[in-house]
């Protein structure tokens, strides 16, 4: 075991820091982009991504033929560590580069990879993930949106929901049902398409935290060529698993207050016991210790995963642990902070609330993190069944044709 950078890693870290100092502002308290300036934010994000690609910091682990740098995963971690110290606008690319493009690389034709991978890496084109539907979220294989073959084309009708970033995305990967007469997992097929294809309509969803980061996407007689199919007809679930495996790696550190902010709040705030500050309060100190071991356990666990990766092993379902820990801890910490602020904790005005209301804002965002990318309950089932080898829950959907499944409606 050795936590020191190798000479090669140290050189890379220095290079990354130099790049970040030249191209990003240092971290400010402001975490969420004000809605009015989303287009400004996107412009800024695209410009940053372009510089990142030019400097060789986009697709660090991707093969050179795809515009990547072909480095080991640890270099990705190093860049992430350094980038997190800055106010880097990389959010809009997380789904595309983390999930969609890896799926394209695995299943698209050589010609298509040449056409799409580069522009995505340079931030010229943004991608979204069109999987979830109103009646198929956790059970995404139960989705309804239909694609029917018509000559060399497919005609698509149906609806997706919760599609993050669909309103500013250029392309999306789309999971649809091509055969309702077989078991649900066997009748799916994956495609990619331009979000500007006629018949695609994006409607923003107003989320409980106030903004509109995700959308409903409607498909009405949308026609796309068979050449935009990823994988074989009926193999959509196998393709989707590649995307979802990458999601586990993509959903990394969580947004929200960092330790410096938590400690600062605790130092400034009188304790609920009436004696000293919150930081001197025994109950708060005990909670702080628990948050610390949970956060460190996650962080260090990722190092173990990275080490395994660098030895050529693939990350297993154990990486599901991260999101459960991070999302719940975020909800706990922000709740504790609001309660400790006492009457004042209800104030969410950035100019009045301590630390520019980062605790209040994150409190409203945390419930979404517990749901997005697999709910707490689904991730725990994955740990129980795939890691611990426990038997599956009773399945009433096995061996039944999709069209005959009970849906409650």
């Amino acid at each position, binding site marked *: 075991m050795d936590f020191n950078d190798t000479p090669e890693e140290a050189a890379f870290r220095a290079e990354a820091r130099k790049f970040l100092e030249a191209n990003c502002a240092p971290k400010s308290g402001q975490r969420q982009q004000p809605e009015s300036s989303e287009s400004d934010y996107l412009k800024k994000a695209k410009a940053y991504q372009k510089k990142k690609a030019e400097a060789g910091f986009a697709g660090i682990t991707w093969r050179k033929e795809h515009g990547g740098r072909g480095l080991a995963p640890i270099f990705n971690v190093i860049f992430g560590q350094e980038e997190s110290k800055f106010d880097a606008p990389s959010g809009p690319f997380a789904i595309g580069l983390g999930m969609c493009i890896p799926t394209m690389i695995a299943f698209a034709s050589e010609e298509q990879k040449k056409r799409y991978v580069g522009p995505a890496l340079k931030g010229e084109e943004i991608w979204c993930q069109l999987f979830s539907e109103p009646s198929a979220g956790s059970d995404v294989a139960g989705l309804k949106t239909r694609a029917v073959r018509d000559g060399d084309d497919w005609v698509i009708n149906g609806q997706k929901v919760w599609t993050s970033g669909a309103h500013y995305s250029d392309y999306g990967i789309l999971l649809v049902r091509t055969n309702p007469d077989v078991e649900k997992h066997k009748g799916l097929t994956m495609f990619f398409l331009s979000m500007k294809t006629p018949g695609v309509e994006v409607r923003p969803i107003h989320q409980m935290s106030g903004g509109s980061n995700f959308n409903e996407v409607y498909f009405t007689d949308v026609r796309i060529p068979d050449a935009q199919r990823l994988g074989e007809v009926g193999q959509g679930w196998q393709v989707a698993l590649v995307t979802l495996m990458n999601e586990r790696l993509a959903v990394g550190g969580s947004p929200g207050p960092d330790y410096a902010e938590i400690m600062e709040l605790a130092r400034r705030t009188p304790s609920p016991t009436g004696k000293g500050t919150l930081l001197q309060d025994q109950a708060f100190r005990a909670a702080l210790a628990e948050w610390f071991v949970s956060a460190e356990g996650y962080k260090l666990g990722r190092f173990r995963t990275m080490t395994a990766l660098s030895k050529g092993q693939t990350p297993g379902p154990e990486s599901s642990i991260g999101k459960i820990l991070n999302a719940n801890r975020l909800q706990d910490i922000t709740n504790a902070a609001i309660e400790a602020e006492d009457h004042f904790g*209800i104030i969410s005005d950035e100019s009045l609330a301590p630390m520019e209301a980062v605790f209040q804002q994150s409190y409203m965002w945390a419930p979404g993190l517990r749901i997005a990318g697999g709910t707490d309950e689904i991730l725990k089932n994955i740990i129980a069944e795939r890691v611990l080898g426990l038997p599956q829950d009773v399945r009433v959907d096995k061996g039944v044709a999709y069209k005959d499944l009970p849906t409650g409606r």
Partner: protein
Amino acid sequence: MNFDFSDDQKSLKDQARKVLADKSSIKAVRAVLDRKPGAPSYDQDLWKAVAELGWLGIAIPEEYGGVGLGRLELCVLAEELGRAVAPIPFASTVYFATEALLLAGSDAQKQKWLPKIASGEAIGCFALSEGPGAPKPDAITTTFDGSALSGAKIPVADGDIAHFAIVLAKEGAGTSLVIAELDGVKRSEVKTLDPTRGHAKIEFAKTKAERLGKAGEGWDLADAVLDRAAVLLAFEQVGGAQACLDMAVDYAKNRYAFSRQIGSFQAIKHKLADMYVAAEVARSNAYYGAWALSTEAPELPLAAAAARVAATEAYHLASKENIQTHGGMGFTWEVDCHLFYRRAKLLAVQAGGPGVWKEKLVRRLELKNAA
């Protein structure tokens, strides 16, 4: 033993639920949530209706224009108001301002304010906090000089619409509880996590005010008002937690995933069972608080703290796990889960956060079990 509400009290509860379902539909709550800047931060029609029904004066003696029933009736109403996330300044006016007047007001002060409260003419508020963290008697900076009040209070629930405020202020070396009319006093609305209730910063500048009770008694009086309010707020919290549980159970029966009702998954079953257990623990503690409040029992301080701690935990759990049970739907603005998540947080801090109440609880327990 008879540890339950009477039949009359239960029928009052049924009536309240019907009225609130009718007048304070979630649509009315949302009208306040989505209001334009400058629009009133409460539902004026509902306020009028509850005044006409006599709810505002239910615990006010008849000689002061009230209905002259007891606190048990008030508890019953509070639970229903909590369930409905009612967008009216009921807590500020009734649990805080009215209780303070009944506890410490002179006959003249009661004559002046209580009839107006009972009729719905006067909205009150309770101004304690001045900054982040639990208030302390020696940290209060708002001052009262015997006739005028100066200094800023923030946040004050319903301070944006109130006609008068009960204020904790420094007077000489100690603290006093005072009452001030808010006509002409500088107030600015403050943005909070729960826009279904208004909040303000109030800046007093030599504002005319009168003391409630004696000079130097302010902190103890405020503590006594908070104990009373804690029991009543606990009922609102229990009502809110119950509403979340009902929503979640209903959704779990009707939503399908993997071709099963999600309520057939044990992860969901146990989650809902945990919410139920917490709500029942809170309810029983709240009932005991109601008994102590209505009988002026010496057990009130401990019972109030227990009711408050249990109810805050139950509503927090229920409001967040109701969202979780709803999956993506729960995270939308259109679905009502977040109204409860917001209100749960407001009620958790409105009379002081749970850390403060846990400390009070244990201190009172120590006193009771002194060596």
